[in-house]
């Protein structure tokens, strides 16, 4: 039983599950469990086709207003979609940055013209987006923006460098935070620009990570262009818009993420049983801890994130991040620890031939860094949620 859903919701769940079984049993069968964090390099073309299939059958923009091309579904049904998506092992999305970040931002801050221009391509899965916030050397300090843009007669000219940009090689466009008022500092004088990726002024260089693969990229803008009207919100008010995007970077998809975590946990548990590690009481206790904490994550999300659609989140997202990121990292440790010595042997001689357990182990080190490091989450929670005073600046 689940306190969140009624019978009609459960019927919707069956509809989603049925669609996923059908689609993943056929031409997209190879995509089960493919893609996702740490595995963005897998089956990219097939996953683009999958994105278009999602769009064709109306599974993108479930919570968007019908007037904007969405389906206007309740948060319960959105949760159900994400849960079933994860439960089925459906592939890591290539369109989620557009659907979950840029789309909601345009719904909040975009002009009617911008919405008409950009939302359809997200909804039908044909236009992919990437995010241009972080800059080299700035770490979690998002206000340290050096990328600059200037509005001339022929539109925006953008120069600078972004980093840790997922899916930059696949994306058609990038939403970029750029300094448009020369001499401004920190949060002031920034604008939120929509920059086409397929142009001579944009250069994408993959970053090789500790996994041997490249989920992240550096993006170089060298006199890159964007149309004058492709600025979201007023010029100079990009910070407010970007914070709006960050605030929606969670929400209903959390429950899908947790379903994915549960699948990962089950695989670790199965490996522990198969290899005998489950008989080691210390390992058994760690498995129990991990499972219990996963239930706690879920209970906490139900209570704090299952809020009516459209409500603006406070620090709940920070609490959630500070719970799941370290949890996931510990699961990665457990994944190799249950294998013992075998956990140190890879699947093959190439640097990126890791076992799934090793990939989980290594890639989860990023969970506590990206999207606001644990340290930044703690500071936000302490100052905004707990009201502890800022120290001397």
């Amino acid at each position, binding site marked *: 039983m689940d*306190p969140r859903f009624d019978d009609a919701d459960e019927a919707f769940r069956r509809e989603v599950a049925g669609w996923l079984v059908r689609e993943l049993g056929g031409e997209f069968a190879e995509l089960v469990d493919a893609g996702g964090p740490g595995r963005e390099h897998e089956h990219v073309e097939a996953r683009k086709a999958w994105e278009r299939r999602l769009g064709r059958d109306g599974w993108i923009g479930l919570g968007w207003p019908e007037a904007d091309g969405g389906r206007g579904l309740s948060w319960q049904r959105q949760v159900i979609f994400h849960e079933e998506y994860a439960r089925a092992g459906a592939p890591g999305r290539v369109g989620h940055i557009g659907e979950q970040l840029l789309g909601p931002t345009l719904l909040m801050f975009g002009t009617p013209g911008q919405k008409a221009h950009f939302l359809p391509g997200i909804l039908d899965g044909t236009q992919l987006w990437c995010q241009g916030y972080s800059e080299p050397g700035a770490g979690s300090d998002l206000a340290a923006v050096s990328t600059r843009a200037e509005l001339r007669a022929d539109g925006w000219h953008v120069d600078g460098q972004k980093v840790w940009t997922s899916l930059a090689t696949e994306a058609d466009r990038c939403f970029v935070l750029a300094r448009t008022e020369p001499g401004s500092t920190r949060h002031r004088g920034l604008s939120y620009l929509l920059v086409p990726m397929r142009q001579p002024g944009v250069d994408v260089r993959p970053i090789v990570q500790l996994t041997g693969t490249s989920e992240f990229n550096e993006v170089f803008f060298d006199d890159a262009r964007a149309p004058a009207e492709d600025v979201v919100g007023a010029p100079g008010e990009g910070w407010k818009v970007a914070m709006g995007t960050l605030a929606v970077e969670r929400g209903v998809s959390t429950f899908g993420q947790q379903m994915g975590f549960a699948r990962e946990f089950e695989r670790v548990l199965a490996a*522990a049983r198969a290899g005998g590690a489950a008989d080691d009481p210390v390992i*058994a206790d760690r498995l129990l801890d991990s499972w*219990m904490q996963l239930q*706690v994550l879920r209970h*906490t999300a139900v*209570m704090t994130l299952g809020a009516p659609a459209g409500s603006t989140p406070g620090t709940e997202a920070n609490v959630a991040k500070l719970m799941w990121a370290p949890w996931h990292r510990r699961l990665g440790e457990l994944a190799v620890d249950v294998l013992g010595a075998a956990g140190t042997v890879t699947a093959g001689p190439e640097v990126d031939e890791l076992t799934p357990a090793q990939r989980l182990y290594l890639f989860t080190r990023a969970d506590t860094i990206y999207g606001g490091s644990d340290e930044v989450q*703690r500071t936000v929670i302490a100052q905004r*949620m707990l009201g502890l005073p800022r120290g001397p600046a």
Partner: protein
Amino acid sequence: MDALFGDEQRDLQRTVRDLLTREDPGPAVWQRLCGELGLTGITVGERHGGAGATTVELGIVLAELGRALTPVPFLQTAVAATVLDRSDAPPAAEVLPALVAGGLVAGLATPAPPTRWPTGSGPALTGVLDNVVDGPHLDLLLTPAVVDGAAVLVAVRTDAPGVTRTTLPTLDRSRPQARFALRGAPAVEIGDAASASRATDLLLAAVAVESAGAARFCLDTTLAHLRTREQFGRPLGTFQALQHRCADLAVLVESAWATARHAMWAADADPAGAAVSAPLAKAYCADAFRTVAGEMIQLHGGIGFTWEHPAHRYFKRATSTDLLFGGRAWVRSVVAERAGLPAVR
């Protein structure tokens, strides 16, 4: 922070908090909790004089009692009343009105592995029930037992012949204990094995939500201290290392509250789920409470180490919460078994 709370529930929370903040923690509080507000019977059906609410509302009251650490046998009595109300066995109708009015104090034996349950043939039970919480106050003791070879839930009047009660001196002075030695004590059956299990689960969930409330008080008090107390020329709360520790504590407190609340919801609404979520909530919340109470002392510095500061009372309550009610190892083993996870042994 609580998406599932309604206005009525917030009113209830405010009413109880006001009462516990205003009143001295003496007999008057007990009278007002029972008689005036009728809270020992909050979950009891109206046919027995109760308020007919769910275990969710009981959880709200328990969290406030945990917050205030009020030394009344409320948790035990309200849990016993709920168990009796849901059992619908004949004794229920007999004792529930007195329980609701506060004229009778009841409670469950602290959970233990079945090998330690009292046994008997017919209605006469023999065995020792140790570390029974609120034992010195109990008029009526509920316990799982093995009667004629079958696991059942029984009720024993503590003034009956064959019952010897020994009051135990306790580290946590707000939570008295007694040992009951039963030698052919008369017992009335009030439920089957499943009832016994559900009764224990409800007790565990109740303890969890009480702990979650207490843990939040510890954090709130610590934050108030850090915001105002200055050291090295600035408020302690401006020091980043302390801010980060408080953030971690806040995560513990929020998640404990969510987990306990879910367990109290499941107690009435999802008994099958409660079989896992109740022991899980008890294990998690007791642990969280112990951590937060320990940090409350540390972050208060020397003053938190004194008898006059409340920190030690919460620290001792957290300790007794963790070690009683079956203890950490047992309650975790119940979770593992019911969730189908490998046993830790």
